[in-house]
């Protein structure tokens, strides 16, 4: 249970970082 919680947190945090990078590239391109 604890393992699943840690894995979920890591996956969510990394996904948010990847999303933020994607948005940054997107904005830079549209500017």
């Amino acid at each position, binding site marked *: 249970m604890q*393992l699943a919680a*840690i*894995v979920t947190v*890591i*996956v969510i945090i*990394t*996904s948010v970082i*990847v999303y933020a*990078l*994607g948005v940054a*590239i*997107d904005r830079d*391109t549209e500017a």
Partner: protein
Amino acid sequence: MTMTHIHLLLNHIPTIGTALALGLLVISFFRRNDDLRRVSLEVVYVIALMTFPAYLSGVSAQQILIEHPDINQVFVDAHQDAALWSFLFMQISGAAAWLALWKYRRTARMSQALMATVLLLSTLAFAVSARAANLGGEIRHTEIAAEAATGELATDPAWITAKGLGRAITDRVYVWPASEALHFIGLFLIFGVVLLVNLRMLGFMQSIAFSAFHRLLPWAALGLAVNTITGMIFVTATPDQYGQNISFLWKIVFLVVAGLSLLYATVFEGPWHVEAGKSAPLRVKIAGATAILSWGLVMYFGRMLPFLGNAF
């Protein structure tokens, strides 16, 4: 022929290739020629792509050498540690080069900031890969190793060595499952975008211009970055599962083909000029079909690692 032969064939590509790319980059700065800039960025990208088989065939060669009585493992480990850093810098250079090429295709203007970044990163990549190449030579040519005289080799701190990183990964039970989940998220990003882009190249969704699909490509590149990092986590943690795995060998072969097809869709003239309402020429359709097939085979051989090969 073993993977050691393949590694001996491929291991010069990162060093010599980066030297060539650096030369082209420097000349393109002085000549202020966008075509030359584009070619040099393409060379950086292709060298980064070829670093995958160069590094991973090295992992295979290492597995073979473990059983070899004449080989001092200290030299092998030192070479692998340097090669891991070389791989890292090569991939960051390749990613920056790809981004510069993608932006150039869309704006017809070369980003000076990205060009300078690629030049800096490629210089670092060359320095690190030259060190890896030198240490690789010392595995079999101990006579050229200054350290051989004393029987000792200066080694990096444990945490930045391939084995140290491998242990750090396997010691933490959450790293592998988290990396697996992220590897799948990366896969969705890559294949979702690649499928749309290449279906348009094949002639589907003709009411939309290719350039609109081209706009999505950075999301696929982000997926590729995620999967390169998580994939390297797997290989670094358990090299024995991949080094002699026939399924992994084919996965990397098709990854190179898929990577080349991504470059084609990103910069080449053929697909870019496919406007709304128009079908693509035959060569573009062939490239689109090749891309979908090769990405599909990358996934297939990844899934087959435990079944065709010896993983897990």
